[in-house]
């Protein structure tokens, strides 16, 4: 027995320094070997080993200093295996003296981790005497220190694992986020490009419609012009049959021209290329012109064409557009009325607005068709009209666009099979700024 070991002060120093050293230990895979190194460095032990107890009861020997390894290792393994979890009241697993190959005094110390003996420390001195109580207490303290250290490191390790896991999760999340952002950016780019293509196609459509309309109009100039000359008798006398047939040519030409003009108007309005021509005029004159133009069509179907327009309503707006809107509404009403009447009724309900209603006793509009009424190329009620009804299905759409353009509104009411009433309201005096925002 080494005297220095009983020097209390020295032992205290040793334990303290070892405690400090152990406190500085960090998480590492071979922690048992490291702890073994620490203990055997600070204490001059003749025999020393650590037996790690796996959860399945298996035993792993770390860092052994034995003079006769095989027998001591065997003793330790057995000790650990035999261990039932019971710790002696004094804190030891066992202390014993073995005689062979030379007398050794052994101490088995438990390392407790979460109420479980996770390892057994074997400390031994080459002596046949039982070790003094003081020294046993020092070893017991060392075992407790190891327990604390191991527990702390395990906690740190699981914390570190958790941090690593969390970092991994965060990285995965970040990656998913980045990928999503990339995807969004990609989609946005695709959409932007699609949008540019659509805009370009829209522009081409407008260009096409405009140039097409102009090209179609040129031959119509000759058709309408020359039939006009012949009908006027400028080129000589014509008989009644020739007059009748030429009138049909001229009317068809005018009809075709009207359709082309509608298409051109819509393409210009949609492209925002419309200029209004403002002037002051009387409503009565415009209504008279419309009635005069559509009377032949109305009398052909024996319809009454009535007006209810107060005298003296003057407007300051685009005369041509107002006439165009009225022409569209009234010719539509005539088209879809087989008996009865078509009436144009105007009034000025307040100070600022003109309200014009076109009322017919025609086929009417089904409720479910109401929302299609002002959509382009919708031809409602075709099945009801006995004869083929001429038109492109853009008349009401254009009228709606024109009302917007003049800062007004258009509404439809109808009782199916009884008649319809289309009402547009526009400012009496057009002012820049009261145009529908879309066109300003």
């Amino acid at each position, binding site marked *: 027995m080494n005297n220095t070991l009983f020097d209390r002060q020295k032992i205290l120093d040793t334990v303290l320094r070892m405690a400090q050293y152990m406190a500085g230990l960090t998480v590492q895979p071979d922690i048992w070997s490291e702890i073994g190194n620490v203990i055997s460095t600070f204490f001059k032990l003749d025999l020393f080993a650590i037996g790690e107890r796996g959860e399945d009861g298996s035993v792993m020997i770390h860092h052994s200093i034995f003079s006769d390894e095989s027998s001591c290792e065997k003793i330790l393994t057995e000790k650990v295996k035999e261990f039932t979890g019971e710790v002696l009241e004094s804190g030891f697993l066992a202390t014993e003296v073995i005689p062979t190959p030379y007398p050794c005094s052994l101490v088995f110390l438990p390392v407790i981790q979460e109420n479980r003996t996770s390892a057994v420390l074997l400390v031994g001195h080459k002596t046949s005497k039982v070790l003094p109580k003081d020294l046993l207490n020092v070893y017991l303290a060392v075992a407790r220190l190891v327990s604390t250290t191991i527990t702390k490191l395990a906690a740190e390790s699981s914390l570190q694992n958790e941090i690593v896991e969390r970092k991994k999760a965060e990285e995965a999340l970040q990656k998913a986020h980045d990928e999503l952002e990339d995807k969004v950016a990609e989609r946005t780019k695709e959409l932007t490009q699609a949008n540019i293509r659509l805009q370009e196609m829209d522009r081409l459509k407008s260009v096409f419609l405009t140039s097409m309309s102009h090209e179609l*109009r040129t031959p119509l100039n000759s058709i*309408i*012009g020359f039939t006009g000359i012949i009908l006027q008798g400028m080129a000589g006398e014509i008989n009644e049959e020739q007059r009748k047939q030429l009138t049909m040519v001229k009317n068809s030409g005018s009809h075709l021209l009207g359709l082309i003009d509608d298409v051109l108007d819509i393409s210009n309005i949609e492209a925002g290329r419309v*200029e209004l021509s403002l002037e002051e005029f009387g409503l009565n004159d415009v209504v008279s012109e419309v009635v005069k133009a559509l009377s032949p069509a109305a009398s052909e179907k024996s319809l009454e064409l009535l007006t209810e327009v107060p005298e003296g309503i003057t407007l300051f707006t685009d005369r041509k557009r107002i006439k165009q809107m009225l022409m569209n509404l009234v010719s539509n009403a005539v088209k879809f009325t087989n008996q009865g009447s078509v009436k144009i009724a105007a009034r000025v309900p307040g100070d600022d607005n003109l309200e014009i209603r076109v009322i017919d006793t025609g086929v009417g509009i089904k409720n479910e068709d109401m929302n299609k009424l002002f959509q382009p190329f919708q031809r409602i009620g075709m099945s009801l009209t006995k004869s083929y009804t001429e038109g492109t299905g853009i008349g009401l759409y254009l009228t709606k666009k024109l009302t917007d353009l003049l800062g007004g509104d258009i509404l439809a009411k109808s009782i199916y099979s009884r008649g319809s009433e289309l009402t547009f309201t526009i400012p009496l005096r057009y002012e820049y700024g009261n145009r529908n925002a879309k066109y300003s």
Partner: protein
Amino acid sequence: MKRILVVEDNEKNMYLISYILRNKGYEVIESRTGVEGVETAIKEKPDLVIMDIQLPDIDGLEATKRIREFEGNEDLPIIAVTSYAMVGDREKVFSAGCAGYIEKPIKPDTFLLEIEKYL
């Protein structure tokens, strides 16, 4: 007999307009380009000019400006013939110096009434 200069590059339109005017007893002078129209207007001193807007060399607006610049032509009535729905045509023809405008297609009866307003 009033003399009317018609500046128009489309043969069918030229024929149509000249026919209506001659039928009514006017003397018609024909020009088929803007430059020719300007030269003829200066040389022939017509009573009225009917000016198409789309012409092969200089357009009808430019031709009108050049005729107006020439001394003695300040009050010469120049009537533009425009296509329908040309953006800003109305303002453009007046600012170029035209006295009025007629929209295509030409309808013989209203066409003559319009012309007579300026003679």
